[in-house]
Every structure is written in C-alpha cells, then in structure tokens.
C-alpha cells in the first residue's frame, strides 16, 4: 500500500538531500531524501523537528484558561483550537447542551474560520502553483504574480478571507486569538449592526465561492492526468458527520471508511476516540503517526480534511455545495478519490458550504440572543472534537477537584495526515526527482504535494514567495557536493563548493 521508501536498508551508503526548513510556522518541518549512486530515490521522509510541549505545560493551569491558551498553538486556525478546547471544557462544567445563541455564535465563528482559512490556502498559497505551473518562473509564482495576471481572482481571494476574518472578529473579539468562546458558552452575541454589516456582503461571498469551486474544477479538468496521479496514496478516510450523515464542521460523530470507500465504523461517540485511533511514534519525527486500530499500524493510515469530509458524508446540508459534492463524487464514478491535488477542489466545495451556512446563520435571530452561558454537573474529564479546516481535531483533558488540568492529549489535524503526506512526497520524489539534477522547480514539486494537504507546515512556506529554502547534496562521505538556496526575496542561487 505504501511506496516502501520510509527506511532504506543501508542509509550510510546513500547521498542525502535535505529541504530544511520546509516551513517557519507551527512546527518546523524538513524533508530528507536519500539517493543511491545512480541518483535513484531510496528513502524520503517528512520530519517535524520542533517539539511544542503544549500538552505538558497546560498541566497545572486552571481549566477556564485553556480555550484561550491552547489556541496559541496556531496563528492560522486558532479558532479550531479555541472551540475544540471549549467543547472539552463544556463537558467539564456540565454544559451538555449549549443555549441556542451560544451554539450558533460558535458555529458562526467556526464557519467564518473555515471560509477564511480555505480562501487563504487556495488563493494566497496554492493558486500560484495551480495557475502558473509547479516549475514556472519563481519570481512570478506568488500571490503578487496572481494579482498581476488574474486580478479579479486575487481580489476575490483577499476579500473572501477578509470576510471570514470579520466573522471571527465579531464573534471572538479579534481576528486572531480572540476570547469569544468560554466553558459553557460564549461571551458575546452579535449586535444588530454587526449582523447587518455581515449580511450586506454574504451574498457576494456565496457567489464568489461558487466561482472558486468552478476554478478548482476547471484546473483539475485541464490536466486530469496530473491532478489524478500526483502524489497519490490510497488510504482510509475519517471525519465527523452529523447523526443523519451530513457534513458538519462543528459537531457530530466519527465515521471512517477504508481505501475502497467501505465504512469501517460510523456514528462513534468521539469520547471513545482512543478505542478507534492509536498513535505510533517514529524516532525521526516529533509528529506522531495515528492509525485506525481496526486495521492495525501497517494498514491503518487514513486521511482527514476536505478530501475525506466531502467523500465521507452522505450529503452537505446546503444546496449549492451539495450539488458540487455530487459532481465531485461522480467524477470518479463513485470510487474514492485519493489524489492529493483533489483536496483543492474538495476544499473549495467546503468553502462554498461555509459561506452558505454563514448566510443561513445570519438570518437566524438566535445569533442576537442574550442567553449565552449554561452550566450543569461538574465532571473531571472532557473531550472536544471539531472538524478544523485541515481535518479532525481532538482535544482531551482531565481536570482535578481544584479546577486544575492534570492531563491533556491533543491530536491535531495535520498529525492524522502524517503518513499520507509522507507517502505523497515519496511518490513525487520517485517520479520527478530520481536521476535528475536539483532545481528550484523540483523542490517546489515536493512542496506542492505537502501543500495540497494544507498542513500547518505549509501555511507560511509560500507566503508571497518568501519561503527560505536550502537543499544540500552531500556525498556518501559527508562532503557537500552541491547546494541550492532560495532566498527570502525569492532569488535562487547555486553554490557549488
């Protein structure tokens, strides 16, 4: 099932190529590639080399601080951590059913987050690759280049993201790292003026999201051979779904399918996640490798995020997005789509669903309500699970009688995709790197594969083409034989020793 390139037999005899760092946010990553004398790829690994430690240093802190503190894990989708932790703390304070106002404000915040994150990823980070080509002129391959060549596309991307951030600001208090969600509810609802301001723009957002789906679909249709095969890795899928099988980003129960699309488990209470998901640790990465217990460590890899969610649900509960979902599913004749580049298409369908959902919520009078917090019987343990932009996000805490956290376990979205990303870059390295001289365009192929999953790793790497990258070719004796660097200003230089 895998490409067999995780561990080479005699790594000491192989040449090593490293892409380090792959990113500069949310856990630095690097890619190492080992080549034999003929330049054939023998080993490829995506390593996450930074240890974060949130699970440890949240211990001993009061529980009401947790939703605000743990969101600092991420500057890109902090709302996901804010809400997953809040849901866990709802269980601690016994708020098993939030007030309608609180639940809808949280949903509004989360769907705003989904909209802005997906817009950022597609337009700012990935559209340069997709519109210009993976190995196109590096000086142009960035959002500024997109703005010059496709000004309306770039403008809409920026405005879609801004709208999503505005939804977050009005519900959480700030665009990044707000405090809106608290154990048992929220600390503010929308005012009539805030609601009216968002309603004035939401119809454009729905329309532009439809156009974005069309663009992703068009790109896929122009080069199906590339889009259907690039970095492909068959695996299972997992996501939350609503009780009726509908897509739901905020709450639901766990459903997983195998690589053929058959259901492995369904409607699982996420508090039992440990029965269904195990985690493996590998010595070469700080990122764990989760797998489905039912299939075991060898075959239990799975994907999360848009590609999983769009195919895992039975329907999307908004009409425009559901029509797009049906077209997506029909594209492969009902067989599961595993191609990483199809993530982009699925992601835009989700963005459309987020925009439609925001529109519906803005028309719901509960979002201007004033009954915001509830509590019930105190508990010592809470699990909160949410579908973050990048996939299923699990927060699990224990809190003692003195109100301090004693245990924290986090399985973040990117972690679920660890093996899938590793296999994707193995496929790409084998296909595009073997026997070739290193070029910047080649490096970007590897990143395109990682980026399709929208890991936190990718979010800063591509920002305005300023990602600093260095690839060093070292011979078997450890001597450096070649070095290629992409500088912060986008310039690429070769430095042969």
């Amino acid at each position, binding site marked *: 099932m895998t490409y067999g390139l995780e561990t080479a037999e005699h790594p000491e005899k192989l040449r090593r190529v490293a892409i380090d760092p792959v990113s500069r946010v949310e856990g630095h990553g690097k890619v190492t590639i080992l080549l034999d004398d003929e330049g054939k790829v023998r080993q490829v690994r995506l390593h996450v080399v930074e240890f974060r430690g949130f699970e440890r240093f949240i211990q*001993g*802190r*009061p529980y*009401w*601080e947790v*939703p*605000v*503190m743990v969101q*600092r894990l991420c500057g890109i989708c902090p709302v996901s951590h804010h809400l997953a932790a809040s849901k866990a703390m709802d269980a601690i*304070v016994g708020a098993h059913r939030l007030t309608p106002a609180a639940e809808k404000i949280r949903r509004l915040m989360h769907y705003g987050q989904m909209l802005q994150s997906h817009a950022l990823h597609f337009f700012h980070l990935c559209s340069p690759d997709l519109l210009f080509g993976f190995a196109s002129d590096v000086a142009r391959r960035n959002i500024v280049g997109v703005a010059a060549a496709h000004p309306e596309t770039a403008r809409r991307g920026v405005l879609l993201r801004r709208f999503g951030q505005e939804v977050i600001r009005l519900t959480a*208090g*700030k665009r990044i*790292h*707000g*405090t*809106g969600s*608290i154990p048992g509810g929220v*600390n*503010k609802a929308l005012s009539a003026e805030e609601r009216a301001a968002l309603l004035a723009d939401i119809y454009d957002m729905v329309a532009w999201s439809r156009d974005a789906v069309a663009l992703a679909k068009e790109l896929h249709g122009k080069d199906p051979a590339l889009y259907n095969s690039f970095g492909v890795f068959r695996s299972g899928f997992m996501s939350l779904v609503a009780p009726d099988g509908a897509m739901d980003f905020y709450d639901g129960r766990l459903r997983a399918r195998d690589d053929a699309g058959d259901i492995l488990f369904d409607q699982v209470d996420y508090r039992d996640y440990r029965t269904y998901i195990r985690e493996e640790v590998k010595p070469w990465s700080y990122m764990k490798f989760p797998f489905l217990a039912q299939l075991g460590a060898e075959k239990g890899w799975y994907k999360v995020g848009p590609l999983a969610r769009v195919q895992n649900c039975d329907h999307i509960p908004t009409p425009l997005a559901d029509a797009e979902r049906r077209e997506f599913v029909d594209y492969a004749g009902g067989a599961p789509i595993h191609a990483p580049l199809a993530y982009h298409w699925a992601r835009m369908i989700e963005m459309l669903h987020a925009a439609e959902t925001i529109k519906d919520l803005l028309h719901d009078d509960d979002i201007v309500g004033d009954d915001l917090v509830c509590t019930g019987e105190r508990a010592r343990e809470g699990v909160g699970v949410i579908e973050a932009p990048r996939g299923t996000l699990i927060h699990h805490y224990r809190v003692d009688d*003195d*109100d*301090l956290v004693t245990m924290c376990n986090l399985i973040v979205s990117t972690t679920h995709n660890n093996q899938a990303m590793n296999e994707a870059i193995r496929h790409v390295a084998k296909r595009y790197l073997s026997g070739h001289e290193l070029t910047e365009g080649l490096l970007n192929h590897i990143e395109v594969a990682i980026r399709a999953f929208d890991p936190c790793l990718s979010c800063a790497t591509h920002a305005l083409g300023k990602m600093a990258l260095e690839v060093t070719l070292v011979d078997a004796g450890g001597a450096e034989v070649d070095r290629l660097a992409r500088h912060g200003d986008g310039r690429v230089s070769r430095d042969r020793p």
Partner: protein
Amino acid sequence: MNATFTLDGRPVAFSEGQTILQAAVAAGAYIPHLCFHPDFKPHGSCKVCTVKVGGRHAASCTTRATAGAVVESDTPELNAERRALVQMLFVEGNHFCPSCEKSGDCKLQATAYDLGMSTPHFDHFYPDRPVDASHPDMLLDFNRCILCSLCVRASRDVDGKNVFALAGRGIRTRLIANSRTGRLVDTSFSHQDKAAHVCPVGVILHKRRGFETPFGSRVFDRKPISARADSTAEIAAVEADGS
C-alpha cells in the same frame, strides 16, 4: 484646601496631610502607580509613582504635598525610569498576558502600554511558582505577583484576617498565604473579603470565571489607564461583578 503645588506646571490643590499622589488622584490628575490604593495606607514599594519634587526623586505616594512645591511627573526621563521598573516586574514573574484572564483589566499591563513598553528588555527569571488552587472559590497564581502588598493591607486593615503576608527578603521576597500549611484553603479567606478584590494584576482570581468580558468592554479597552487618575474602583467593580 487652599494650598497648592504644581504638577507638570498645573496647580493641584491639597489638604493638610495628603501625599502628592493622594492629592493628584483627588484632583483627577494621573501619576502612574501600582502599589497605591486610595483606601489604604501608602506602601511606597513599587516606585512607579516616582516624581521629581524640586528636582529630587521622591515616591509621590509617600511624599507629603507642600505648598508651592514644583512636581515633575510626565517627563521623558521619569517615564523611562518607570518603564524600566515595569520591565523588571515583568521579567521577575511569569506574565503571559495572552492567556491571562486579567488581560485588559490589569494595571501592570495597562501601565506598560501607557509607558510605551514594547519588550521586556531584561532577561526573564522564569521563576518556578506553582499556583495555589486549594481554596474552593479562589485561586492564587503567584506567577503574576508584583509584591504590591495590597492584599496584605486589605486583609489586615479591612478584613481583620491577616490572610496574606510577604515572606523572605530582597529578591527572595514572596507572597504567602498565612496558614500553617501555607495553603489558602487553611486560612479564613473568603471570596467576599476586601482582599479578594484589590489585586491590580492576575494573582487573586475568582474561580470558574474568566474571559467573561469581550474585547472592547474591558476596563482598559474603554479608556487607557492615563485617562483616569485612578482605575482601582473600576477594576474592583469588575472583580465584584458575579462574585
């Protein structure tokens, strides 16, 4: 109340026995301060209220006002010294404003903003100060203590309990709960005590509350600290709300 002194060139009236800071607060004039509280005897420990009287440094909270005195406060030199004092307070404790529920209602944070503090400047001490969560209603997060002693004074002078004390000397000075076990639960402390509502930072916290006030409505979101002579009453109102 006819006698006056000048504060940065403006006349400030005072009564016999008032300190410069008491008179300034009564007159609605702002002098930065942390350990001063209008209800308690001045302590003079934080030195943030230091002014120049007739060209000489003096803590305005403990220096009596005198007729005709020329007091300088809002000067680049004094504000730079105050900024350094506040920076030292930040590095001596563990002040993580982003996840502190007093953020926006905290005098230390507001004073730092007002003084233009953009970095801690000094190396952090990163002291190891476990929280005391033993009390059913209140939590002590010693990480944020600036040794202002307001809780000590409030508990002793108003509540008549002596729940808190400053122990140790010099750099080892620390706030303690005054019980045989050293734990707050073993004192007679109550969430209704005056001492439960005077902490200018985030040490003495009402449990199971936090982040209840949205951005834009917190004390120092509404007005910067320098726009009021003293913000103690407003912070106390926030503390009292819901407790």
